């Protein structure tokens, strides 16, 4: 479908504050409501919610806070999560199911199973991870309305 060039895609962004573990999922919840309101198909909303929730968790747990952004295009969703945390030294390892560097505190909450990034990948149609040790990480995930 051709969209007029001057029409801006819908965008929404939230800050993820360091240390506020009980708030994990608040941004994803708002994204989910937005996507449902915009009439995005429910299976797409579900996949986007999982990606957003895992990404939000990563930003808080590993990145020490940051931000998460949702952009809705006519046939796809782009989610970007960024932090200025320690970065990921070994991306290949981080992508392995079961590999986690989460602390015991996080595990007590039920997270840190080492499924986050694999889950994000599984639920997106494209995913990119820009990371530099000591600088931070930017994760971008694209979810298409049709797979």
């Amino acid at each position: 479908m051709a969209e007029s060039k001057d029409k801006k895609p819908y965008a929404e962004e939230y800050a993820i504050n360091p240390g506020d573990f009980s708030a994990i999922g608040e941004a994803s919840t708002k994204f989910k409501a937005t996507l449902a309101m915009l009439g995005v198909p429910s299976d797409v909303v579900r996949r986007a919610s999982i990606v957003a929730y895992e990404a939000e968790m990563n930003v808080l747990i590993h990145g020490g806070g940051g931000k998460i952004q949702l952009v809705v295009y006519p046939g796809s969703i782009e989610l970007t999560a960024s932090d200025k945390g320690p970065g990921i030294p070994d991306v290949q390892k981080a992508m392995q199911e079961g590999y986690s560097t989460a602390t015991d505190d996080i595990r007590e909450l039920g997270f840190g199973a080492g499924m986050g990034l694999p889950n994000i990948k599984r639920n997106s149609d494209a995913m990119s991870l820009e990371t530099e040790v000591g600088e931070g990480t930017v994760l971008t995930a694209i979810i298409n309305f049709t797979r």
Partner: protein
Amino acid sequence: MNLTEVARILRAEVIWGDEFLDSVDVTHAYGADLMSDVLAFARPGTLLITGLTNIQIVRTAQMLDLPAVLFVRGKKPQDSAVALSKEVRLPMLVSPMSMFEACGLLFQNGIHPCTVPVREG
């Protein structure tokens, strides 16, 4: 199977959502204390069975469109979790049984497992 039946089989106490028990139907269940596993494998319409009691359980259920949560080993959800579950209309049950027993009884009564894909390598 509706939640009234689930509650009967598992001798569960209803923490919140009494009025929805008859109308909420579950066909599948997923038992885990790891929320990332739940996010990976639970399909929509799945009853979440867990021993964790924090607010993230409710958020996880909400993200996945799960219809209800059952806490095992008699563990009651935290106040913040109950408050959010009321907000998002997520019924909560507590069973005195262990995870194994609760899952076993549901399986025996025809509730299906969620498919976990075969791992590569």
